[in-house]
């Protein structure tokens, strides 16, 4: 059984507070916090790219391990091809091993963890990276206040392989392209988002995916010690907790400080959570994500 052996993260130094962004957008900063829970987000420097963000996150979790496969999730890569995976692997000194791009916004790190758990027996340790520079499209003119307030930059990483860690017990992944137009980033345009559709579907589909993996493993939601979810919006996280019928405090959240970093957010949150989490053997941890596509799912893990 494959396990998550370590996590890593990197966020840029530049902090963009909601007050500063509100002045630019001509809105009340309190509105931003009320509608999203986001007080500040990190913005990559001009010389920071998806590749450099991903490398920094990976460096914080490799710890000398031998890597057999790299999977990189990013929906904000600077070019059509090649994707960032091969270049990140090269910069990490991993040139020659396969490096796969997964251009799946928001839910990409969850899909990558699942793929890694299934590929680890064949490839050995799998380095999963999710790196996003969402500020570029989100803060591009003409500004859409409902989009601009949400996004930030950063990267998360994890090693999946054999060993003691968070054992990946099961996962449920889903996609439905009938909603493709509801959240999209064209090559030339700003991020287009049908907020009603995104929120309504996410509020239903995330709890359903969590229930799916819990039922298959015969685990009650109340028995899950920690939930790590894509950090899309604090109001969404709270509603998912309500639907799953667990206290909202059990859902780790750092969206207040980083905003929505798309596919990177779940791994950034997991890395930060893991630094202070006092996990006991047998503790269940549930991951969940939802994003453009729509793609969504959940993953159940247990501390060894």
């Amino acid at each position, binding site marked *: 059984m494959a396990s998550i052996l370590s996590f890593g993260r990197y966020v840029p130094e530049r902090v963009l507070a909601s007050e500063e962004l509100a002045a630019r957008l001509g809105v009340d900063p309190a509105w931003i916090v009320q509608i999203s829970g986001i007080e500040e987000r990190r913005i990559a420097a001009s010389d920071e790219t998806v590749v450099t963000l991903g490398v920094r996150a990976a460096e914080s979790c490799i710890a000398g391990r031998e890597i057999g496969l790299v999977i990189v999730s990013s929906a904000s890569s600077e070019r059509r091809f090649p994707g960032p995976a091969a270049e990140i692997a090269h910069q990490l000194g991993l040139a020659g091993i396969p490096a796969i791009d997964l251009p799946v916004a928001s839910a990409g790190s969850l899909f990558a963890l699942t793929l890694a758990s299934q590929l680890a027996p064949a490839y050995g340790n799998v380095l999963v990276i999710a790196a996003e520079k969402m500020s570029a499209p989100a803060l591009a003119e003409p500004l859409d206040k409902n989009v601009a307030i949400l996004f930030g930059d950063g990267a998360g990483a994890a090693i999946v392989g054999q060993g003691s860690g968070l054992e990946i017990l099961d996962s449920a992944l889903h996609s439905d392209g009938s909603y493709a137009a509801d959240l999209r980033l064209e090559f030339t345009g700003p991020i287009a988002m049908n907020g*009603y559709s995104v*929120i309504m*579907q996410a509020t*239903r589909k995330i709890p359903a995916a969590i229930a799916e993996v819990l039922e298959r493993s015969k685990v009650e939601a109340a028995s899950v010690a920690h939930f790590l979810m894509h950090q899309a919006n604090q*109001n969404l996280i709270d*509603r998912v907790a309500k639907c799953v019928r667990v206290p909202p405090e059990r859902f780790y959240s750092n969206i207040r400080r980083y905003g929505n970093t798309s596919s990177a957010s779940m791994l950034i949150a997991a890395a930060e959570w893991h630094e202070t989490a006092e996990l006991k053997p047998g503790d269940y941890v549930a991951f969940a994500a939802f994003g453009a596509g729509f793609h969504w799912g959940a993953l159940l893990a247990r501390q060894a």
Partner: protein
Amino acid sequence: MTRTQQIAELVRKCSKKPTPPDPEEPLFDNGYLDSFILTDLVLELENAFGIRIPDSELNPRRFENVEKIEALVENRATRSAG
């Protein structure tokens, strides 16, 4: 209490407004509903009327006013009964 009144009261409860909306009152334009309140309302409707609204029917246009919500509830209740 009629079904119309029940739905209007659920809208009031979810929106935390002091008074329920009129049956044809635009719920989004008049601040009764936004995307998050709408998700709360769907849960309340499902619990109150013992129905399940499929994800494919979660379109904001079906929730524009109390009359439209009532039509959706009746449709789902009929299907459940059938």
